[in-house]
């Protein structure tokens, strides 16, 4: 086992910590960093503790992570002997996590987050002032979901998927979404719980809706549950709602 200090020295003339694997699939920058190599010569792993303006970028994973501090465990991906894939990470302070897939992308903002890959997806647990943004292939924002905490499942590859497979936000949740039928108009919905999947967004508990430019929706309230139907670009194409209280 040896420290990562030797690798960091490769960043000649630059201040702070820099790491990249042999093929530069994974690049890491931070003001300070400490790492430990592990594993076997055929299967090297890297444990990192990074502080200050941390930037992690994985081309193969289509994944970017920015935060004040990140503790990460890096493993070699397929056909690689050097560590080039984030297996898990804990990020704190101004966390920004972006997953790109098929041109579309989703970004999660929060104060603390854990990231753990599992198979072809990555699980994210985010806390404090969570915001999820989705962008279409033209990098146009199509939805913004906010909540006090949440979880998300991200695609682990930039080769397929939408970036964000599903997410759940709790606390006082809000989603601002493009209404596909309203010439670029937006609709805003609030509630207690927000679940985002690839083709639906569900809000439950004290749901209210408000259209901004939409022609069909001014205000909607008194609703317990609303399901927003999404197109491939994560724009709203319609919705259904209900409120049934027991007598």
């Amino acid at each position, binding site marked *: 086992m040896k420290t990562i200090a030797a690798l960091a020295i490769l960043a000649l003339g630059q201040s702070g910590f820099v790491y990249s694997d042999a093929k530069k699939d994974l690049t890491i920058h931070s003001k300070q960093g400490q790492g430990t190599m592990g594993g076997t010569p055929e299967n090297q792993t890297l444990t990192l503790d990074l502080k200050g303006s941390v930037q992690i970028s994985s081309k193969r994973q289509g994944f970017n992570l920015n935060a004040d501090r990140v503790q990460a465990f890096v493993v070699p991906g397929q056909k690689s002997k050097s560590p080039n894939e984030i297996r898990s990470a804990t990020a704190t302070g101004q966390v920004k996590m972006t997953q790109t897939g098929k041109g579309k992308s989703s970004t999660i903002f929060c104060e603390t987050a854990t990231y753990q890959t599992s198979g072809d997806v990555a699980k994210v647990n985010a806390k404090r002032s969570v915001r999820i943004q989705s962008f279409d292939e033209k990098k146009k924002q199509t939805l913004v979901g906010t909540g006090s905490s949440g979880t998300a499942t991200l695609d682990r590859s930039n080769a397929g998927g939408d970036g964000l497979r599903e997410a759940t936000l709790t606390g006082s949740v809000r989603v601002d979404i493009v209404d596909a039928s309203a010439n670029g108009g937006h609709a805003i919905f609030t509630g207690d719980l927000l679940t985002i999947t690839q083709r639906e967004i569900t809000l439950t508990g004290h749901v209210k809706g408000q259209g901004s430019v*939409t022609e*069909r*929706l001014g205000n909607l309230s008194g609703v317990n549950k609303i399901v927003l139907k999404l197109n491939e670009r994560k724009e709203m194409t319609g919705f*259904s709602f209900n409120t049934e209280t027991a007598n």
Partner: protein
Amino acid sequence: MKGVLSILALLTVFQGQVLYQDPSHDLVLSGKGVTNWSGETLDNGDLSFRASGDPLVLEAKNQGATITTPRLNGTFASAKGADGKTMTYAKVLHAEGGTTTVFDGQAAYAGDIAKAQRLKQPTPPEPKEISKGTLKTDHFDYAGSQESGTFTLPVAFDVTSDTKGMIEPKKKGDPVKAFLQNMEMHGSSGVINLNPGSKDKKDFLKTGHIEGPITFHMDRSESVAGAPFASVGKLDGQADKLDLDLVTERTVTLSGHVKLNGDLPNYISVTGGEKAVLKLNDAGEIVSVTFTGSPTTSTIKEKKGGGKR
């Protein structure tokens, strides 16, 4: 007095929870004791809904229409009006459980003023006639557009209408007249076509066919040059059927077992007629009554000082 009425009006404003409000705030669905509120957007963009409450109130402010009912389902649709502005309207409605529908010309005018202020347009002129109509029935179906609508009334219903307005002098120097005209009608079923979105708020009632037994009462009073209102005519009637045409012929046609008893410019009493056609002028006055068939009794007498029939 006006202040007291204003306070009473404020006290009677419905204070239920707003369930739906269109972007222009013209169409508002609210309810008290809401036990069901559900719906979905349709492929054509319309919003389909179902609601139950104690009661529900649907207001179409720009039409001056208010429906109060415990159960309501239907669809709201949006389309651009003649002014280029998008308007949301009730496209289909089914109300049941004891319904009251009010068409208030004064409220429609207030809605027009509010809309003009919102759009920073000139205040619309006050209409010369204002009507308030009320339809009460257990349940009905409604199908409409931005400008017109049809009520289908499968069961017994009651309609009342109060109209007030001014009659312009026919020639210079004649005094201005004000009038009040009231109508009550009971029918067993029928279809009524309305034009509530019309610029002309006075005649939201357009055509209709009503099955009997039908009973109705009309009375009219006028005030000349500010004097107290005095009765100028009244009419009570019964029939098996009633056809209304206020679009082309401006007639009310009564058919089958017609009974009329009126104190118009001429005194009219008919029993057992097959058909009677009442012709109205633009001010809603009955200007002629034509009978066909063989009434068992018929009396038409010219009143002293009365006009011609």
